[in-house]
């Protein structure tokens, strides 16, 4: 980033060739991308500059719509024909923009390779993975012999950590789990020793433990090939440990660039500051509200006149509205590198000790009326007693025979008291969603007992009892877009549960106005359709609908996982506030442990349909006893580069075992890092007996392990020094 940003674009383009650092593998100058849309031309990327040095990692961080993916697509030449791309993208000094698709193919996959977000759809299902790796090799090395290609493919699979690579070469993508497929994608990407590897949200679709594995593989891949990596992500934690430099993008423009330390410890742009404050952290307990960034990004179909962040910035002044600030070097602080630049005219005011909570006026942590009452004295809102859900596994086309049982939920018992939030965490496939569905179904034929507000499912045979229970418990869904009927106005959405209770029209109207205010939406927006709201607002509507009938318990199914970081903070704060003000109880399912830590009072860790550890959230998170909890917690990246680089991580081997060959003794033994380190005599116990869920001391968490706090096998421990 050596060009002077006050030049005209033309000058910068001319200079790009002259002054770009000679050794940069990839230099992008003044990249602009425009799309046509129903609302006119959208200027999606507005002047991106960066230089990528060999072997370095650049993290591009931004929310959806910030233009980070479009930038990478433009570099790869993968944007649709209809897009208008200007500027310059040079690979080792050679201009890539304007190359024909055919010419670009020479570079794609050999010089520049890409890892896509969704491993499930990035591999062709009808070819074996070996075929697909060899295909990548064949395209760029037509002279390579068949044996050499196969040997290379085996090498690659071994490099990305796929066990018995030779046999797996003949496997089809559907025989691999998501994490394994992403490994194969990485293998294909590095097949031709690319100089630049672009990873577009490579772990977003994966579980935390798998995410840790895949990040590890990316790390190895980079070490092996010496490639420069562009890592695109919305998760500030993921890049903290990996990247050397960070570029924060907002509304299609980089707003702050610098080394990781610059960005994380000394942010000079309010947006960066807000983003860092908006992320809950797994390593600190949630006694403070998160930093909400109000509002939405600007409409890029309209020309940007002032600072693009001005509308959401708490420090905004008149000067911000006149002319968009360029990226200026941040005035020197001692020990600062020169590369730190921020696009903010007030960058000086944000010195190292700026407090995001103060600047963004984060609300105080709300206190519920139940907080002072001891847990044992509060009434039970929900109680599960030995709930089981087994699915038969059938085989055969005409005559089905049972070949096994999937124990999705296997004997779950827990309770929720008034005013508390209980979270269920675990990898996908552990049965947490099935648990929620079992509770929501509320049917007398279920195995086990579900008691909601004193009503048991065993007696809920008539419509009236069921309706009474439905009034006690409501649900908020994961995807706010899918949970609202696109053809209903907000009024109709909110009126539905009330009409169902037979409320008179006037009362419904009044209640809806109350609800809109309660969740922080403007009451006069009730006549709009859901697609006229942003994701965060839609989730607020979903919450309002759940609260309409005044339930005691709200079931939250991944309530914020579909939202952007800055919006997520606002919704979490809202949930916190509602719990305190209305005395609600929550049952939440989430895979993001940082969110869980922030919002819940109690947590239950599930593995293969069973709770392996449960207790107060601070107990479990600060002193995890079960090896699975320990691995799960250590897999979460923390948005703190120094910590991230030095901390020990437990990388679990493999994926969830298939429910068909579920282990006989402890479920977790097959992947357990403690088990692996045990002497054979003690291993016997894990393999034959099932550890009961019990606490060691009164008043601490329950866990199901014979060897809590055991020593971790050194093969599964990773430290990046």
């Amino acid at each position, binding site marked *: 980033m050596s060009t002077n940003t006050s030049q005209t674009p033309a000058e910068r383009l001319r200079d790009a060739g002259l002054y770009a650092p000679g050794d940069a593998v990839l230099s992008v100058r003044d990249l602009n991308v*425009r*799309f*046509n*849309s*129903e*609302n006119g*031309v*959208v200027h*999606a990327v507005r002047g991106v500059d960066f230089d990528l040095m060999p072997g370095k990692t650049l993290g591009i961080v931004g*929310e*959806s*719509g*910030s*233009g980070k*993916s*479009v930038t990478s*697509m433009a570099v790869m030449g*993968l*944007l*649709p*024909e*209809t897009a*208008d791309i200007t500027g310059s993208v040079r690979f080792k000094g050679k201009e890539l923009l304007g190359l024909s698709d055919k010419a670009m193919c020479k570079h794609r996959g050999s010089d520049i390779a890409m890892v*896509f977000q969704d491993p499930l*759809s*990035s591999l062709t299902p009808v070819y074996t993975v070996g075929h697909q790796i060899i295909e990548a090799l064949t395209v760029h090395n037509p002279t390579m012999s068949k044996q050499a290609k196969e040997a290379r493919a085996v090498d690659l699979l071994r490099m990305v950590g796929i066990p018995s690579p030779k046999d797996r070469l003949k496997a089809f993508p559907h025989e691999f789990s998501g994490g394994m497929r992403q490994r194969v994608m990485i293998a294909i990407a590095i097949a031709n020793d690319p100089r630049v590897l672009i990873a*577009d949200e490579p772990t977003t679709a994966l579980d935390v433990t798998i995410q840790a594995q895949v990040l590890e593989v990316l790390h190895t891949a980079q070490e092996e090939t010496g490639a420069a990596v562009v890592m695109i992500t919305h998760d500030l934690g993921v890049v903290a440990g990996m990247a050397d430099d960070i570029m924060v993008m907002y509304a299609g423009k980089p707003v702050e660039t610098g080394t990781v330390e610059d960005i994380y410890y000394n942010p000079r742009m309010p947006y960066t500051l807000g983003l860092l404050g908006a992320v809950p952290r797994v390593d600190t307990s949630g006694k403070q509200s998160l930093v909400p960034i109000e509002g*939405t*990004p*600007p*409409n*890029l*179909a*309209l020309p940007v006149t002032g600072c693009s962040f001005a509308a959401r910035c708490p420090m905004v002044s008149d000067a911000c509205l006149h002319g968009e600030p360029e990226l200026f070097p941040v005035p020197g602080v001692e020990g600062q590198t020169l590369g730190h630049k921020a696009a903010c005219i007030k960058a000086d005011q944000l010195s190292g000790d700026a407090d995001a909570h103060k600047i963004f006026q984060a609300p105080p942590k709300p206190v519920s009326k139940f907080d002072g009452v001891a847990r044992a004295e509060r009434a039970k809102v929900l109680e599960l007693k030995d709930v089981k859900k087994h699915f038969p596994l059938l085989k055969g086309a005409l005559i089905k025979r049972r070949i096994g049982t999937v124990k999705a939920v296997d004997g779950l018992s827990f309770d929720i008291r008034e005013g508390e939030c209980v979270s269920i965490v675990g990898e996908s496939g552990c049965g947490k969603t099935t648990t929620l569905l079992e509770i*929501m179904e509320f049917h007398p034929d279920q195995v086990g007992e579900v008691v909601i507000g004193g009503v048991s499912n065993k007696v809920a045979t008539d419509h009236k009892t*069921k*309706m009474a229970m*439905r009034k006690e418990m*409501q*649900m908020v*869904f*994961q*995807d706010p877009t*899918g*949970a609202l*009927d*696109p*053809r209903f106005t907000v009024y109709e959405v909110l009126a*539905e*549960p009330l009409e*169902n209770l037979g409320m008179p029209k006037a009362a419904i109207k009044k209640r809806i106005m109350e609800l809109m205010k309660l969740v922080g939406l403007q009451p006069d927006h009730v006549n709009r359709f859901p*697609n*006229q*709201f*942003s*994701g965060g*607002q839609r989730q607020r509507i*979903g919450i309002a*609908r759940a609260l309409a*009938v005044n339930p005691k318990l709200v079931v939250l199914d991944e309530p914020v996982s579909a939202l952007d970081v800055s919006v997520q903070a606002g919704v979490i704060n809202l949930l916190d506030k509602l719990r305190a003000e209305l005395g609600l109880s929550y049952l939440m399912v989430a895979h993001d442990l940082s969110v869980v830590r922030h919002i819940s009072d109690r947590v239950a860790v599930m593995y293969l349909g069973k709770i392996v550890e449960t207790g107060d959230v601070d107990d479990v998170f600060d002193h995890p006893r079960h090896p699975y909890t320990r691995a799960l917690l250590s897999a979460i990246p923390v948005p703190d580069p120094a910590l991230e680089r030095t901390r020990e991580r437990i990388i679990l081997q493999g994926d969830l075992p298939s429910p068909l060959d579920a282990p006989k003794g402890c479920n977790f033994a097959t992947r357990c890092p403690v088990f692996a380190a045990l002497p054979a005599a003690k291993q016997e116990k894990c393999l034959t007996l099932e550890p009961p869920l019990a606490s060691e001391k009164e008043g601490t968490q329950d866990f199901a392990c014979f060897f809590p706090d055991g020593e971790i096998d050194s093969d599964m421990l990773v430290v990046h020094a």
Partner: protein
Amino acid sequence: MTNIIDPIAEIDEARVGDQDVVIGKSRIIFRRFMRNRTAVAGLFIFLALFLFSIFGGFLTSWDKDTLDPLNIGMPPSPDHLLGTTQAGIDLMALIVDGTRTSILIGLIVGGVSVLISAVYGCTMAFFGGKVDATMLFILEALIMMPAILVVAVATSGSGGLKDLPSWLLLVVVLLFFSWMGTARLVRSLSMSLMQRDYVKAAKYMGVPSRRIVWRHLVPNIGSLLVLDFTRGITGAILAEVAFSFIGIGIKLPDVSLGVLIGQATGQVSSFPWMFWVPLTVMFLLTGSLAMMNDGLRDAFDPSSSSIGRAKTKTAKAAK
């Protein structure tokens, strides 16, 4: 490789917050449709034919029942704009009448079959289980029934159906055979809609199932029904032409395009106008509907590229 279209969708998403840029869905669909020139042309041709079939009678002073003994089998002339048949009937009058019959059959069959399939499909998806299995069996059985035989038997006048005009008889028979495909489509679409979170939400709120179907399912398959309506019209017109051509559809004295084409095939060389004129009208009719359908599909499809390139517009803006 869904990633490739993603960036645009992503921007669409981000931009939604600003109220002034939100455009109603119906307006977007209308705009997209209007942007497709072929589709608009199709719409105009269809409307023109429709008006022609109603008011075309005023273009000629003859009607289809009057013989002109002075002009038997004459090529187009000022007296008879499209010529006459070998019986001396004005071809223009016949065409007007035939087009009207064909369009009428198309509209009725297209519209009613869409209604039947929507109700049938939604019922199957909603009740599920045994009801679904039984209704699906009936549907499959109907698909396997040879339509041509039934048409032949029904229109030959057996079974006390003589009193009905032959075009109405054909409408009934065509209706009987036209709704199964769409019903199956509606069934699977509603089944996937039943899995949507908003349907689940309504269920968990305790909303009665019947109301869920009516309020959440039916409106959300609307775009499919509109598309199927235009496709159904084309299908019905083609079926009518085909049946009448082989002589089992519309019977004289009713005329349709199929009847006219069928009658003229034997004498293409001696009376070419009698063959080519109705054929052209039929092509215009089905062609215009196909063009419209193409545009409608583009308009309803969120991932269509009907929006065009960014390049041309920005180039203009730069000047």
